[in-house]
């Protein structure tokens, strides 16, 4: 038996490229915990912007939360907004640059707690923007506090014995809420913890940006994601938990097409 030694150069020369780094992602190392869904979501958004050829015509809005540093990873012009205010900031951008593509990238605390008003009113005005909403049921960046989307009974550092709905309220299904507004063109709930779901999420993001191109109004894509650090699980356990618990409360699929 003979062993053929292949150098890396030969692999590149011979092989067919099936996967490469998205051009609109920077070379910065992601600050997210290993196993976190943010990286995939970032990449998908940038991939779609790149494939649509609108990178030089797109302005993003980063929130406060884990993705506060999104501007370090996405190689486009980005504004970082105050906590919860991203839809208002995006409104300001879109109104003075109606011909540009504008998106916000927000977590559940940002979009569904402190920024509920900005979210609902941007959607109600039908701002022609894309909202990417990462729902992992917890405040990741600040150390695992309870989020508006924390499940009943779920433990967090501010619900250490589990979320008691009688005193702490129920998980907020804000995507369903805004789907009722006439200004919202598209509301969907996706996930990125399996290859198949990643493909579906990408399709949803393409549709959302296409809606913006066609001036249809607000498109909101909720991505139910894991937070293995915040949930205090391994990445694999967290994905399983997501499947069994999060998706039971937050079912995937289009809410408004």
């Amino acid at each position, binding site marked *: 038996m003979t062993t053929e030694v292949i150098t890396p150069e030969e692999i590149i020369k011979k092989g067919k490229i099936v996967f490469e780094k998205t051009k609109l992602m920077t070379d910065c190392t992601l600050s997210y915990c290993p196993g976190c869904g943010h990286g995939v979501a970032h990449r998908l958004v940038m991939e779609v912007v790149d494939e649509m050829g609108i990178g030089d015509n797109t302005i993003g809005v*980063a929130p406060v939360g884990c993705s506060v540093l999104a501007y370090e990873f996405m190689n486009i012009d980005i504004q970082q907004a*105050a906590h919860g205010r991203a839809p208002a900031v995006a*409104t300001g951008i879109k109104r*003075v640059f109606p011909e540009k593509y504008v998106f916000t990238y927000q977590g559940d605390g940002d979009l569904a707690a402190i920024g509920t*008003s900005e979210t609902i009113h941007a959607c109600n005005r039908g701002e022609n923007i894309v909202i990417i909403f990462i729902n992992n049921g917890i405040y990741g960046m600040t150390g695992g506090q309870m989020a508006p989307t924390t499940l009943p009974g779920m433990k967090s550092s501010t619900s250490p014995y589990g979320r008691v709905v009688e005193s702490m309220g129920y998980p907020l299904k804000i995507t369903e809420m805004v789907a009722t507004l006439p200004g919202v063109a598209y509301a969907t709930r996706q996930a990125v913890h399996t290859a198949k779901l990643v493909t579906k999420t990408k399709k949803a993001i393409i549709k959302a940006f296409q809606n913006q191109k066609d001036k249809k109004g607000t498109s909101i894509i909720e991505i139910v994601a894991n937070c293995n650090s915040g949930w205090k699980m391994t990445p694999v356990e967290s994905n399983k938990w997501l499947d069994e618990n999060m998706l039971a409360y937050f079912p995937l699929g289009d809410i408004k097409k």
Partner: protein
Amino acid sequence: MEEVKLMKGNEAMAEAAIRAGVDAYFGYPITPQSEVIEYLMHEEPFKRTGMVVLQAESELAAINMVYGAAACGKKAMTSSSSPGISLKLEGISYMAGAELPCLIANVMRGGPGLGTIQPGQSDYFQAVKGGGHGDYNLIVLAPSTVQEMADFVDLGFDLAFKYRNPVMILSDGAIGQMMEKVILPEQKERLSNEEIIKHYGNWATTGKPESRESNIITSLDLKPELQEIHNQHLQNKFKTAEKNEVRYEQIQCEDADYILVAYGTSARISQKVVQLGREKGLKIGLLRPITLWPFPKKIISELADHAKGFLSVEMSAGQMVEDVLLAVEGKVPVAHFGRMGGMIASPSEVLDAVEKEINKI
């Protein structure tokens, strides 16, 4: 074309915004400044110049819309009155941190809390000492006439873009609600997107071409070493503004041996006090700060070398008087006369206070 009109201060400011080539106004109604957005909606500048006018869902949203538009290199503004400005402070602090130019007008009413809808000047500290969190300053312009309400829009944007910092017009309910003759400036063209890229393309989010690095607007630096360098840069900017942008007016100060210091409506009343006092043989004058930040410290210090005393006249419990005290450096006595809660001092009661203070010296 220049045009002479009788207008309310609020309306004059709104019309001046259209004529200054402002790109966007975002606001939320509150007495006594609702005429600003009412006038703009009535005039429909979106048809005249393409200026955006949007009634936001809250003052918070409005200032953050200003943030978004300003970060695109556009001329964006908002206006409100005291309680609404309190809500905007978060956004104002972020804009100062992110070095965004914008214009904010505060048509002050009496506070604290919901207070009253009548005029006040009790947001002086809030305006000139920062107001929001962190080390920052606003350039603060204090109009005392309807004409200045109009003129300070253009001036405000010039300063905002010169320093890449928010500028505030600190007015009050009386200036906002009163009508005076105003000469409106000629219509300025709004900048085209190409011009914006040319002038502000090195920082504004205009869409990243491959030829440059991405423009990032943020007030965040998680590394304290870098955040300190950023803050030092801001402070240097503020020092330059303190050196170059002090504006004030002296009324009969040349031979005055007692000086009133007042801005806005209180300055108008104090002008009358100077007239009435002079008729009685009192050698009094008025120093009217036009920029409240940077504060005209130097001229006050110089006047203190000759004058026997100062009286700060404000519709507050005594806020600007602290800056007058600092500027006078203990050379001569400094007193305060104020009405609060929406009460406007009458010229005769201020004159009484002046005479009382002079007699004490």
